[in-house]
């Protein structure tokens, strides 16, 4: 009974504030992750040599560098170069870099799965390369990339907890403070875990709905 009172009166109110910060982190990072990821993917497939080279280096660096280290670089490292970011901004930037690198891999795979003939056909119809990519290739590729992008979104939810390591008091941080103060590590982290599990579950269900909503009838993947 004591534990229930602790959870209801102390833990949940504290977690609520943290949850809002976590949601803000995700909402700020996810759209740019997809947008930049799409840009990097297009650059890797259709770009000139230097663009391809840059995109590959971008992906290699941000996939290979641990996210926590990236956050340290942005938050503790950049001030020595004269750029001071707030913990929140540094976190969002780090998430965008990391997320876009992984997103670009899924989008690149999806672009490559679109038949080359479509590109030629678009050009034959008088479209420019940019127009073909924007109006023919990407609308199909992005739909096909949805399952992979959802995967990355789920990772983003979970890895947003790392923002706590550079002092952002989000869900994990808010819980850690309560746990340390009241010495209730098991209860606190299990409750936090359940919150993350619900976020992940809701996302997965939402993603299925989205996928069905944007599906074009008769265009099941792997047929074109």
């Amino acid at each position: 009974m004591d534990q229930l009172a602790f959870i209801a009166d102390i833990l949940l109110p504290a977690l609520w504030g943290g949850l809002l910060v976590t949601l803000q982190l995700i909402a700020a990072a996810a759209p740019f992750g997809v947008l930049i990821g799409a840009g990097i993917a297009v650059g890797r497939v259709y770009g000139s040599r230097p663009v391809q080279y840059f995109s590959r280096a971008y992906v290699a660096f941000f996939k290979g560098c641990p996210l926590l280290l990236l956050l340290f670089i942005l938050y503790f490292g950049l001030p020595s170069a004269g750029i001071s970011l707030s913990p929140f901004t540094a976190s969002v930037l780090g998430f965008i870099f990391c997320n876009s690198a992984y997103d670009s891999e899924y989008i690149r795979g999806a672009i490559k799965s679109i038949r080359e003939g479509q590109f030629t056909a678009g050009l034959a119809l008088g479209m420019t390369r940019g127009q073909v990519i924007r109006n023919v290739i990407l609308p199909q590729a992005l739909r096909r990339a949805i399952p992979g992008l959802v995967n990355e979104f789920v990772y983003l939810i979970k890895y947003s907890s790392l923002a706590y390591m550079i002092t952002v008091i989000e869900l994990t941080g808010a819980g850690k403070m309560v746990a340390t103060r009241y010495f209730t590590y098991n209860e606190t982290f299990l409750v936090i875990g359940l919150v993350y599990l619900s976020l992940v579950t809701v996302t997965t269900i939402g993603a299925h709905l989205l996928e069905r909503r944007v599906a074009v009838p008769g265009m099941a993947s792997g047929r074109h």
Partner: protein
Amino acid sequence: MDLAAILISWFPFLLTGIVATLGLVFAALGVGFVIGLPAAIGQVYGSGPVRFLVNVYVWFFRGLPLLVLLFLFYFGIFPALGLGDVSPFVVGAIVLGLHGGAYQAEIFRGAILSIGEGQMTAARTLGMNRMQAIRHVILPQALLIALPGWSNEYPTVLTDTSICYAIGVTELLTRASVIVSTEYIAMPIYLACAGIYLVLNYTGIKALHLLEKRVSIPGFEAGSN
């Protein structure tokens, strides 16, 4: 003292961190394998309760952030079990293993399911029991098919080890941070640290590709059976 001299003087210190990081990677992949493979077998061939248990395990360890798992085990579960003085390194390796095991279970499950069902029936017809069929017929093929997916676990686990910083494991990132706070130079140290991670990442992936090529059987690929 200029930067190069500082880096060189700290290099042995960083090297110990690299050893700890690689130790975490191997321990985590090993623990993950020992848990993930039986979990996958349980998921495919197990009875109802076994399948349920495995599903709960996978759901839990894939749904929670690694940081939360580390805090839960290091500050909560281990002390509650009277294991409060287990070193952070061991806790880190076990948690990374449990976390990775859930992902590995999915990889192995996919590989097992890709083996035609007829093979199990054929093995049973030849007089093998289910265990024998799994051990001598299904797994040798499934493990081969799972290898490319399993290789992808290496870079993930490598970057994940850095999160053990949060419970005070003295791995690469922790040691880099110690240098930063001693020498008051952040950027070059962290970039050097990133460089080390990239090298470890690249070498490991190359080594795994070599292994894949070595163990591959010509004409036997996923979907060919």
